[in-house]
């Protein structure tokens, strides 16, 4: 059976880390299984871990008044979920819910935070990788925000646009 260390070593997210750092990280990890519907994290809770999804799929979602629960993004095999543990104030901003049975390695962020403080090389290496995760999330969010498939403004009501001037008086 492969150890968590093997797993971390092979994962592209942790590529190029020194074996020492991999060992440290692996030391903070444990295997977990979530059934469909189980939460890996809840909005507002302390973010004390992050997850490497080994198999399955999780949804990052948020509860809204208008639309109920809205899935912001899904994350699956081989991907990372959770960046809140490394950025203050270390609280989850979204819910993370297993959409199907999901095997993940949970990494203890609280423990890693301490190690990063002591070993800035490790801290830098991880922060660099997580800023990548953040950047991807931002890009995806921006694209979603553009609503590129939506009906363009003015398309539906061709001439009603004139009404815009209404009330400018």
């Amino acid at each position: 059976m492969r150890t968590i260390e093997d797993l971390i070593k092979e994962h592209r997210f942790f590529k190029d880390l020194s074996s020492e750092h991999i060992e440290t990280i692996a030391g903070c990890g444990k295997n977990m299984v979530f059934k469909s519907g189980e939460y890996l994290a809840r909005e507002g809770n302390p973010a004390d871990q992050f997850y490497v999804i080994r198999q399955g799929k999780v949804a990052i979602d948020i509860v809204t008044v208008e639309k109920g629960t809205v899935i912001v993004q899904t994350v699956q095999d081989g991907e990372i979920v959770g960046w809140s543990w490394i950025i203050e104030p270390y609280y989850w901003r979204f819910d993370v819910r297993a959409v199907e049975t999901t095997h993940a390695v949970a990494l203890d962020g609280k423990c890693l935070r301490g190690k990063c403080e002591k070993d800035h090389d490790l801290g830098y290496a991880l922060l660099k990788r997580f800023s990548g995760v953040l950047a991807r999330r931002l890009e995806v969010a921006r694209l979603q925000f553009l609503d590129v498939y939506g009906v363009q403004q003015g398309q539906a009501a061709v001439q009603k646009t004139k009404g815009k001037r209404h009330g400018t008086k």
Partner: protein
Amino acid sequence: MVIKKKQKSLPHKKYKPKLAVFKFASCDGCQLSLLDCEDELLAVTGEIEIAHFLEASRRVLDGPYDLSLVEGSITTPHDAKRIRDVRKISRTLVTIGACATAGGIQALRNFKDVKEFVSLVYARPQYISTLATSTPIVEHVPVDFELRGCPINKSQLVETISAFLQGRKPQTPTSSVCMECKRRGTVCVMVAQQMACMGPVTQDGCGAICPAYNRGCYGCFGPKETTNTESLAKWFLEMGMKKEEVMRTFRGFNGYAPEFRQESERQEMG
């Protein structure tokens, strides 16, 4: 038990959309365009029920109306209220003519003091109820489509009604008068005769008649899309016109349309 009502076999009657025509401050010319469609009038009434058109009929059918044509601008407190009532009973509201779409010639008051106007024109100003401004309908209620012109063009009116009946967008160009002028084969009066012409900043639709009758366009269809009034005004000045004249050129039948208004104000100030 269900009793089946014996159905009378009525001849199939198709639903005719109801047309209404409303007038606010205006000259009646635009609604007259409808009566001027001598060749189409009976066909129009075959397709559409004229339900409210006081210029043509004393028969008034109750609303709501499928298509309301609104002529004229809002110049009195009473009319400002009335147009909201008209909107309420109109499924589609189309404004027709420069008064309804830009305030009309009577919007020239907007640049002056209306109180002075009242005392100047009327022997008994106390009977006169008026607003300080003459404003287009769209400043009061949402409008579905604006048909430009002082007056509107008959074929554009037929096209608009036709488009309404077919459920499509009216094919009324928003480009310059120059395009139609050139298609018509008229020699440009501005280039060849140094006449001031508003054609390059005015919306087509009239058929470019003025240059064909050897005079410059006076902008009765209002600003075209993407106007560059500043450049045209500059050229007018280079042609030897006085600022005052340029100001007046823009301050005509569509003088209160934003693009023309801004230019006349620019000329007035500077």
